[in-house]
C-alpha cells in the first residue's frame, strides 16, 4: 500500500508546484463515501473523494488517496501517514480532544432499521429493550447502544462491516440495526427486505480529521469547506451522490451562520476514565475466558476422537480424518469462522457465540489431534504388550495404559495451544462477538489512544495465561519426578 502510494506520488502530474495532499480513507466503506471506481479500480470515487479534491484544488495541491482501514484512520493521521482523514468519520468529543478536527461537512441521522413485520412494534430504541440491535463497532451508534444497555436497553451487537448487520436483520439473527441513514438507505437499495423508521434516533456529523498539531491546515480546510457550502458546489456533490436532503439545507444554514461550528454530539462529553471502562474490559475478558475454555474442551474431546481414529481406525476411517486435519490446518481460521457464521447461514443459523466456540473448537481440534497422535505413538510397544498379556482388551489398554501416559506427554504442547487459543479468540470479533481485544479496540477508539487500553488489555491477557503456564509446569514437574 505504501509502495503504491509512493508510486502515485512519484507519477503525479506536476500540475502544481506544491507537494501532493495525501488524504486517507477506506475504500472498503464503499459508495457514497469512498469506493473503488468500477471503470478504473485503481481510482476511487465518492463524495469524500470529491471533497478531498476540492480541498486539494483550493490549496493548489494534488489530492492523493491513501487506503487505510476505517478504524485506523485517526491513528494513521496522527502518525503522519497522510494529512487528512475523511471517510464518513464521525464527529465526537473524544475525537476533538485528541486531534485537529474540521467543521462538519455533512449531517447524518442515526436511523433504526427493522423487519417489516416489526415496523409497528419497534419504533424506537425504547421498544427494543433486551432485543439484539446491530451496528458498526466503534461508531457513535454503538456508543449510544452501550450507554443504553445498563438501563434495560437493547443488546448491542457489533459488526466490522456494514453489510452483514442488514443481512442478519433480514435472516432474523438481530432484531434491528442502528446506523447512519446513508448506510441504511444504501442497504435498502441494494438488497431491501427491511423497513427504516422515519424518526431518527440521533444526529451526527461527518468531519475531516487531522493530526493534533496540524491546526493551520485544519483552519484552511474549514475556510474551504465553508466556501463550498456557500457557493453550492458541496450541495452539487451531495446531490450527485443522492444524499442531499432537507437536513443538509438546515445544517448548512446553521454552519454558515455560526462560524465556530457545531459542538459536541450528544451529552457524553467527558472523556471516559479507566475506571468507567475497566468493568467492560473485565466482562469482555470473561467472554474471552469462557469462549476459550469451551472451545478448548471441544478441541480436546474431538482431538482425542480424531487421534484415536487415526491410530486405531481402518483406512476407511483414517482417510477422511486426515483430510479434515489437513483442510483445517491448511486454511486460515478467519476464513473458517466466516464460512461457519455467514457461509452456512442459509442452512443453519448459528448464534454468534456458538459459531465462535464451534469455529475455534473445530480448528484447534485438528492441532490437538496431531499432538495426541504423536503422544499415542510415543508410548513404547512393551507397555501395550504388557497390557495384552495381562488380559486387558484393546479399549482398556487405551483407556488405562496408553491414554494416561500419552496425556502426560501431550500436556506441555496442550498448554501452549490453550494460551494460543486464548489470544486467537480475539478473531471471533469478525462474527460480532465482543471479547477482550474487540472491547479494547472500542475503548481505544473512544478515548482516541491505544496506550492505556492496550496496557490494560495486555495485563488482563497475561493474568489469564501466566497462571495457566505455571500450573502446567508444576504438573509436568510432578509427573517427571515420580
Amino acid at each position: 500500500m505504501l509502495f503504491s502510494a509512493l508510486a502515485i506520488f512519484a507519477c503525479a502530474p506536476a500540475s502544481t508546484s506544491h507537494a501532493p495532499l495525501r488524504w486517507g480513507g477506506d475504500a472498503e466503506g464503499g459508495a457514497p463515501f469512498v469506493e473503488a471506481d468500477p471503470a478504473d479500480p485503481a481510482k476511487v470515487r465518492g463524495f469524500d473523494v470529491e471533497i478531498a479534491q476540492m480541498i486539494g484544488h483550493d490549496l493548489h495541491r494534488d489530492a492523493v488517496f491513501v487506503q487505510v482501514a476505517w478504524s485506523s484512520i485517526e491513528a494513521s493521521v496522527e502518525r503522519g501517514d497522510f494529512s487528512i482523514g475523511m471517510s464518513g468519520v464521525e464527529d465526537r468529543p473524544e475525537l476533538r480532544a485528541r486531534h485537529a478536527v474540521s467543521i462538519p461537512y455533512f449531517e447524518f441521522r442515526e436511523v433504526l432499521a427493522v423487519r417489516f413485520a416489526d415496523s409497528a412494534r419497534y419504533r424506537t430504541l425504547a421498544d427494543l429493550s433486551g432485543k439484539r440491535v446491530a451496528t458498526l463497532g466503534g461508531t457513535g451508534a454503538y456508543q449510544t447502544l452501550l450507554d443504553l444497555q445498563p438501563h434495560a436497553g437493547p443488546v448491542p451487537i457489533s459488526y466490522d462491516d456494514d453489510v452483514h448487520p442488514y443481512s442478519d436483520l433480514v435472516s432474523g439473527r438481530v432484531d434491528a440495526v442502528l446506523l447512519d441513514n446513508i448506510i441504511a438507505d444504501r442497504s435498502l437499495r441494494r438488497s431491501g427486505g427491511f423497513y427504516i423508521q422515519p424518526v431518527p434516533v440521533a444526529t451526527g456529523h461527518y468531519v475531516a480529521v487531522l493530526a493534533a498539531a496540524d491546526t493551520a491546515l485544519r483552519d484552511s480546510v474549514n475556510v474551504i469547506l465553508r466556501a463550498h457550502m456557500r457557493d453550492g458546489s458541496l450541495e452539487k456533490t451531495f446531490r450527485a451522490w443522492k444524499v442531499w436532503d432537507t437536513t443538509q439545507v438546515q445544517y448548512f444554514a446553521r454552519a454558515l451562520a455560526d462560524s465556530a461550528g457545531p459542538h459536541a454530539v450528544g451529552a457524553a462529553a467527558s472523556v471516559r476514565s479507566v475506571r468507567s471502562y475497566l468493568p467492560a474490559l473485565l466482562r469482555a475478558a470473561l467472554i474471552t475466558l469462557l469462549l476459550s475454555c469451551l472451545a478448548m474442551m471441544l478441541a480436546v474431546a474431538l482431538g482425542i476422537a480424531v487421534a484415536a481414529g487415526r491410530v486405531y481406525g481402518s483406512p476407511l476411517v483414517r482417510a477422511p480424518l486426515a483430510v479434515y486435519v489437513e483442510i483445517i490446518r491448511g486454511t486460515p481460521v478467519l476464513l473458517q469462522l466466516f464460512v461457519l457464521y455467514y457461509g452456512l447461514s442459509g442452512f443453519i443459523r448459528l448464534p454468534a457465540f456458538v459459531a465462535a466456540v464451534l469455529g475455534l473448537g473445530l480448528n484447534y481440534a485438528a492441532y490437538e489431534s496431531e499432538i495426541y497422535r504423536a503422544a499415542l505413538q510415543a508410548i513404547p510397544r512393551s507397555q501395550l504388550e504388557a497390557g495384552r498379556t495381562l488380559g486387558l482388551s484393546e479399549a482398556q489398554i487405551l483407556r488405562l495404559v496408553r491414554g494416561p501416559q500419552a496425556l502426560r506427554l501431550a500436556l506441555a504442547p496442550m498448554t501452549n495451544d490453550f494460551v494460543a487459543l486464548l489470544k486467537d479468540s480475539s478473531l471471533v470479533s469478525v462474527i460480532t462477538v465482543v471479547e477482550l481485544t474487540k472491547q479494547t479496540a472500542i475503548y481505544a477508539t473512544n478515548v482516541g489512544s491505544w496506550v492505556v487500553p492496550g496496557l490494560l488489555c495486555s495485563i488482563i491477557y497475561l493474568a489469564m495465561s501466566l497462571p495457566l503456564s505455571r500450573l502446567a509446569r508444576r504438573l509436568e514437574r510432578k509427573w517427571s519426578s515420580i
Partner: protein
Amino acid sequence: MTQALDVRDVHASRGPHQVLRGVTIDVAPGEICALMGTSGAGKTTMLRAIAALGPFDSGSIVVDGFALTPGHVPPESKLRVLRRSVGMVFQSQSLFEHLTVIDNVTLALVHALGWTRERADAEAVELLTTLGVAHRAAAYPRQLSGGEAQRVTIARALAPDPTLLLLDEPTSALDPARRTSLGEVLRALAAEGHALLISTHDVDFAEAFADRVAVLAKGVVVEEGSPRDILSDSTHADVRALLRSPSAEPRE
C-alpha cells in the same frame, strides 16, 4: 501328566529370515525349563509366539489345553482363555509408569477379571509380600531399583494366577546376589505348581535353578536334558563355550 506347555515343530520367520526351524519343547506344571541360546538363536521369538504377541508359520502351540493356530496373531477377543493361563515377564522394563506398584499388580484383577478393589488389593499385598517388595507398594516404577522392578513385574504377571509363566532374560539386570534371590523365588513358584519357561543365556543361573535345559541354536533345539547333563558334562564343553561366548547377548 498333561503339559502346561506343548510346542511341536514350530517354524517362524521374520521377513525373509527363518528364525525358528522346527522347535519342539514342553513344560510340565511345577517345572522350570531354561531355554538357552546365544543372541539371535530365536529365544524371544519363541516366547512371543507362545504369548500370542508374535506370529508363527507352522507347527502347534498348546498352552494349558488352548491351541494357538499358525498365521496372524488372533484378535484379543479370541485370546481370553490364553491370557488367563499365560503370564509374561518382559526383558525390558514394562511396568506402567503412571501407576503405583500396587496399581500395576491389581490392574488386570480389577479390569480383566472384574474383582473388587478390596479383593484385588489383598491379593496384591500377599503377592508383593511373598516377593519381598510389599514395602514398595505405594512407590512409582521410576523409584524402584532394578531388582525391585523385576519382582514387581513378576508379581503383576502372577496376579491373575497363570498356569504358565514366561520370563525373558530375567537376570540380565541383576547382580549375583539378586540372581540367587530371584532363583529362590522362582523355585517357590514352581513348588506351588506353576510351570516356568525362562529364556536365558546365564549358564550359572540355569544350572542352579532349572529342572531342565533346552539349548536353542539356529532355530532348533540342539540339546535338551538336566542342567547337570547339558552344562556340566565335559562332552558338552562346546555348548558351554557357545553359551559363554563374549557375544552373550544384550537382546535378540
